């Protein structure tokens, strides 16, 4: 019998009080009808997130920004409408057309949030890049996305974009935050443009299938994948945030994810705004003491965070949570990688609440599987599918994929067609098609389902690395290493890590004439970090004399990983053929 954490009676009726009934009553038409919709038809994420509440609750705080210097800046819904209408006016003035891509590269500053929603209001496609990326991941992603506009800060521009600018032919306009008189050549002042812009009167007349958001994710091979989402995704952003995060209108909600990753957009921007809920945005980096203080001082009621942060909080000890008042917290959820049972139990002790794991991917656009507020928790479980979502565990039977009986492992698949499902991998139709089999979206995650319908994560079906909740493609790292003259060949795996789940580890064959020494290690690490940034670059490099390869020449990462873990390597001839 699995361990169960039983809950007492809820303080507030959960937004999804009766799971079975909600499943039975569910219809997409009803979900759609809960949105305002554009006057005159159509659907626009920014309209649902901003205009809807700017009319009904203009003075309500949409975002409370906790700035790095300690200042607190409130942005009301009325202020957000003004800012986003101005940003849309800036894009209009620049001649940006519907569907054009607007990129952002910035920390969690107000301008980023205004740019995101202003872009959607204008009908262009928004893509946010993680500010800790190095120039190479930035270049690759902006090239695939053919970004016409980039919003960034002067410091990030100088360090990361200026050196690659000549290799970004599609990039026409660079808009810099901050002092209008400190913009280098080839850039424009966002501050000045916003001041001078004519605010657009209305949100663009977009339709459900029009592209809205672009998020990059990593696969095992090849370049990063640009997953494209449409305005219709807002149907699910809103409903899944309400259900899986138990959002009530009076909540104070804190999503710790950065908008450089999908969580920071779906649930750091769209989910709370479309539910009329006030969000806390912390600009600073992770710090246990400050995080507990924010939960206390901002009276956070719903908190959405990640396992790596939770594990770092666990390491920081029990004195910190005991010194603050966390009594207002009502619901805590996590995403990014499977939450270990220990962390779920720690939540009860340190926060007074169990932590609810949720499951989704960049491709799914929103939470599909969750531990629910109204149900007891089985620590370690992914949870169950939200109403409207159908999942299956598919097992290979010869060439076919068939639903597996309860308890058996297989690939987690989701019935295609929910509104926040990705609509394309940009410029890679074949790769997109390969994600589907019959009417199922194949997630690449292995899982099993028990007799009660709960899903349990087993592992990845591919070699993608999950480091601190961010997917890292081994190929991207290998390619960068092999461009260094000191490396002849490289193979990259995720090495299990107690804090980050996995860290990126590289096995490198030194180039002829180079000794496998500390100097080369440091050189390669420095090179990779500068190009890729710390979230993607290897944290460990081991020199080897050979790398196992398939007959077609691909690195056998599974074998490298088995060796790293001291596991049996299995029948290598089979592995070679399984490539």
């Amino acid at each position, binding site marked *: 019998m699995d361990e169960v954490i039983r809950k007492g009676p809820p303080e507030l009726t959960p937004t999804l009080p009766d799971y079975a009934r909600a499943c039975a009553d569910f219809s997409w038409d009803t979900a759609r009808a809960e949105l305002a919709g554009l006057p005159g038809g159509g659907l626009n994420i920014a309209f649902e997130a901003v205009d809807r509440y700017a009319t009904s609750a203009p003075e309500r705080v949409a975002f409370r920004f906790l700035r790095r210097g300690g200042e607190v800046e409130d942005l009301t819904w009325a202020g957000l409408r003004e800012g986003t209408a101005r940003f849309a006016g800036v894009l209009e003035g620049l001649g940006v057309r519907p569907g054009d891509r607007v990129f952002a590269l910035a920390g969690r500053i107000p301008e980023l949030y205004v740019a995101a929603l202003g872009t959607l209001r204008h009908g262009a496609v928004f893509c946010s890049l993680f500010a800790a990326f190095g120039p190479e991941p930035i270049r690759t992603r902006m090239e695939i996305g053919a970004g016409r506009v980039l919003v960034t800060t002067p410091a990030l521009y100088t360090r990361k974009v200026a050196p690659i600018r000549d290799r970004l032919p599609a990039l026409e306009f660079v808009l810099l935050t901050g002092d209008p008189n400190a913009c280098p050549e080839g850039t424009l002042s966002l501050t000045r443009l916003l001041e001078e812009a004519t605010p657009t009167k209305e949100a663009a007349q977009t339709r459900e299938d029009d592209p809205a958001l672009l998020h990059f994710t990593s696969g095992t091979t090849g370049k990063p994948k640009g997953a494209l989402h449409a305005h219709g995704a807002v149907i699910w952003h809103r409903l899944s945030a309400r259900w899986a995060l138990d959002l009530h209108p009076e909540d104070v909600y804190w999503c710790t994810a950065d908008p450089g990753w999908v969580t920071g957009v779906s649930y750091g921007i769209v989910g709370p705004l479309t539910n009329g809920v006030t969000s806390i945005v912390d600009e600073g980096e992770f710090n246990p003491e400050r995080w507990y203080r924010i939960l206390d001082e901002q009276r956070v009621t719903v908190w959405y965070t990640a396992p790596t942060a939770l594990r770092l909080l666990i390491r920081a000890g029990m004195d910190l949570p005991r010194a603050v008042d966390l009594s207002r917290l009502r619901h805590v959820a996590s995403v990014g990688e499977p939450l270990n049972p220990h962390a779920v139990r720690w939540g009860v002790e340190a926060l007074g609440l169990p932590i609810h794991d949720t499951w989704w991917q960049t491709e799914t656009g929103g939470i599909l599987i969750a531990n629910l507020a109204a149900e007891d928790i089985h620590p370690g479980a992914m949870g169950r599918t939200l109403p409207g979502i159908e999942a299956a565990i598919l097992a290979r039977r010869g060439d076919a994929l068939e639903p597996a009986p309860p308890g058996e492992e297989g690939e987690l698949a989701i019935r295609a067609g929910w509104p926040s499902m990705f609509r394309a991998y940009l410029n890679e139709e074949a790769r997109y098609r390969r994600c589907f089999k019959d009417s199922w979206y194949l997630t690449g995650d292995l899982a099993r389902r028990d007799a009660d319908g709960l899903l349990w994560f087993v592992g990845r079906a591919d070699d993608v690395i999950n480091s601190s909740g961010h997917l890292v493609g081994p190929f991207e790292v290998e390619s960068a290493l092999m461009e260094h003259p000191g490396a002849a060949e490289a193979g990259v795996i995720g090495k299990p890590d107690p*804090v980050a789940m996995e860290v990126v580890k590289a096995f490198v064959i030194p180039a002829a004439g180079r000794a496998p020494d500390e100097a080369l290690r440091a050189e390669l690490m420095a090179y990779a970090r500068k190009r890729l940034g*710390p979230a993607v670059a290897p944290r460990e490099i081991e020199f080897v004399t050979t790398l196992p390869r398939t007959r077609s020449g691909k690195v056998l990462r599974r074998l490298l990983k088995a060796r790293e873990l001291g596991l049996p390597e299995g029948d290598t001839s089979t592995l070679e053929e399984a490539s």
Partner: protein
Amino acid sequence: MTPSELRQTFLDALVHVAPDAEPDALDPDAPLRDQMDLDSMDLLNLVIRLNEVLGVEVPERDYPRLDSVSHAVAYLEGALSARG
């Protein structure tokens, strides 16, 4: 250990964890984070490294005190002298 030796030890530890750091180019009084990319895993590894070479245990709540080279050196000096 003199302040300048301690400074060198700190910079060595930083370069060990983040070999992309350029100690000569770092402004000792400016936040490290504004001069290079350091994430929370880097910071954790830096603290582990400092513990290995100096025997100083930096509790999580003190991590912000390592935010610049000058601050870090002052903090480590204090921690070493408190230990006696």
